[in-house]
Structures are given as structure tokens and as C-alpha cells.
């Protein structure tokens, strides 16, 4: 049938503010099912909250950060939170915790923190770059 393509998904809407985490995950699963490759998931703006290790939704509701991180781990897809967005919004890994002398770190594995250069790379190397914004 069709040739296999490579995708990058950019998520800018936060979970529990927008539907972006859910819509993007359903789409990501369909990308894999269709035999395509997911090069990278890039969290930008409010989207970085998807990488929080401390979200604790009610137990009868889907846990989007957990579901997304399991999906990334299972398929070995890099999940990147934009560093400028993440630092302002209080999402930090151990390295940034140390650098800014903060009391804790809260980045959920396997998400990593990196710069917009990762997004630029996606625009150059992925066949498709799709964006998942909030709808407010």
C-alpha cells in the first residue's frame, strides 16, 4: 500500500485544560498501527505539563501523562519538553533542579528537556509535523 512515513507530533495544549493530550495519543497510536515511524514528540508552551511526574487525577479518570510516557517507552520514541517553556512553567529534571537550586524535580521519564533545535530538526527530517493545540 502506501510508503512508510516519519512523523513528529508537537503538543501545545495542556492535559486537563485541553483535549490535546488525548487527541494526540489516539493519533500517535494510529500512526504506529499504520506502520509509520514516530521520530519525536515535542512539548511546547502549555504542552509541557504533559511531562509532569506529579499529576494525580482521580483514579476513575485516564492519567494522560502516565499513558503518554508508557506509550513513548514501549515504542522507544523520544519525548522532548522545550526547555524555555518547561523552566518557566515549573517542569524540571535533576540537572535543571541543581542548576537553579530548586527543591525538587518533577519531569516524568522518559521525557527529556531540550531546546527548540529539536523541533527545527523535526521540520527538516520528519515527513510530517502535526500540531495539537488547545481549543480555548
Amino acid at each position, binding site marked *: 500500500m502506501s510508503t512508510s512515513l516519519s512523523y513528529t507530533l508537537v503538543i501545545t495544549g495542556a492535559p*486537563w*485544560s*485541553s*483535549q490535546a493530550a*488525548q*487527541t494526540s495519543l489516539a493519533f500517535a497510536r494510529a500512526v504506529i498501527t499504520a506502520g509509520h515511524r514516530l521520530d519525536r514528540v515535542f512539548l511546547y508552551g502549555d504542552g509541557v505539563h504533559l511531562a509532569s511526574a506529579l499529576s494525580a487525577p482521580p483514579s*476513575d*479518570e*485516564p492519567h494522560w501523562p502516565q499513558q503518554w510516557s508508557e506509550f513513548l517507552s514501549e515504542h522507544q520514541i523520544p519525548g522532548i519538553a522545550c526547555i524555555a517553556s518547561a523552566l518557566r512553567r515549573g517542569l524540571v529534571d535533576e540537572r535543571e533542579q541543581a542548576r537553579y537550586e530548586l527543591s525538587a524535580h518533577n519531569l516524568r521519564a522518559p521525557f527529556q528537556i531540550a531546546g527548540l533545535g529539536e523541533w527545527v530538526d523535526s521540520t527538516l527530517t520528519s515527513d510530517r509535523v502535526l500540531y495539537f493545540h*488547545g*481549543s*480555548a
Partner: protein
Amino acid sequence: MTTLIVIDQAPYGTWVGREALDMAFSLAAFDQPAALLFIGAGVAWLRRAQNAAGIGQKTLEKNLSAAPLFGIEQLFAEQTACERFLPDPDSRVKGITMAGSVNHLLEQYDHVVFAG
């Protein structure tokens, strides 16, 4: 002290409407008079036969139907918005009071609140 909670955003795509409902139910739980007003795309909350399981959310139509039981005094809907988004009266949940004039309604409450 009467409070009117206003919902002007469509369901499920954002969280604001849901958080507005939580505010209304909280007032009711503390026996405070509360009513809800749906305007603009917010009237889509009032459509029957919602089923949000496929998008991983709770269907909130039931919560609305239960609103009177929990002590929420009234559900108002902007008439022009209903004519636009829910023209068929059978498509609407029961127990809605049509508001022909939104500003007239706003004047009747001590607090008028958007959730976000």
C-alpha cells in the same frame, strides 16, 4: 447571596465548563443558591445523548440532569444560541429555562461568575 455561573465554552474540548459545574455543585453542597447559564457554544452542554467514553472523558450530561437534585436552582440557556446550535427542541436535555435577554438575567444575581 445568589450566584449565576456562566458557561460559554463547548464541552470536552476545554476544562472550563467542567470546572464551572464544580463551582455550581459546591455552592449547592453548602446550601447556597446557585444557577447555571449556558451561552454561545456553551449551549452544546445541553444536547442529549452525549457519550464521551471514546475520548476518555466522563459524560457530563448526567451531571446536568442531576443538577436540580443536588440543589442547583435553575439551568438557563441563551435562546439565540439554542436556536443556532440546538434548533430541534427534542435534542435538548429536559428542564432548561430559555433566556431571551442575557443582560436582564445577569442583573438578577449578586454574583455572576465565569470559571475561567
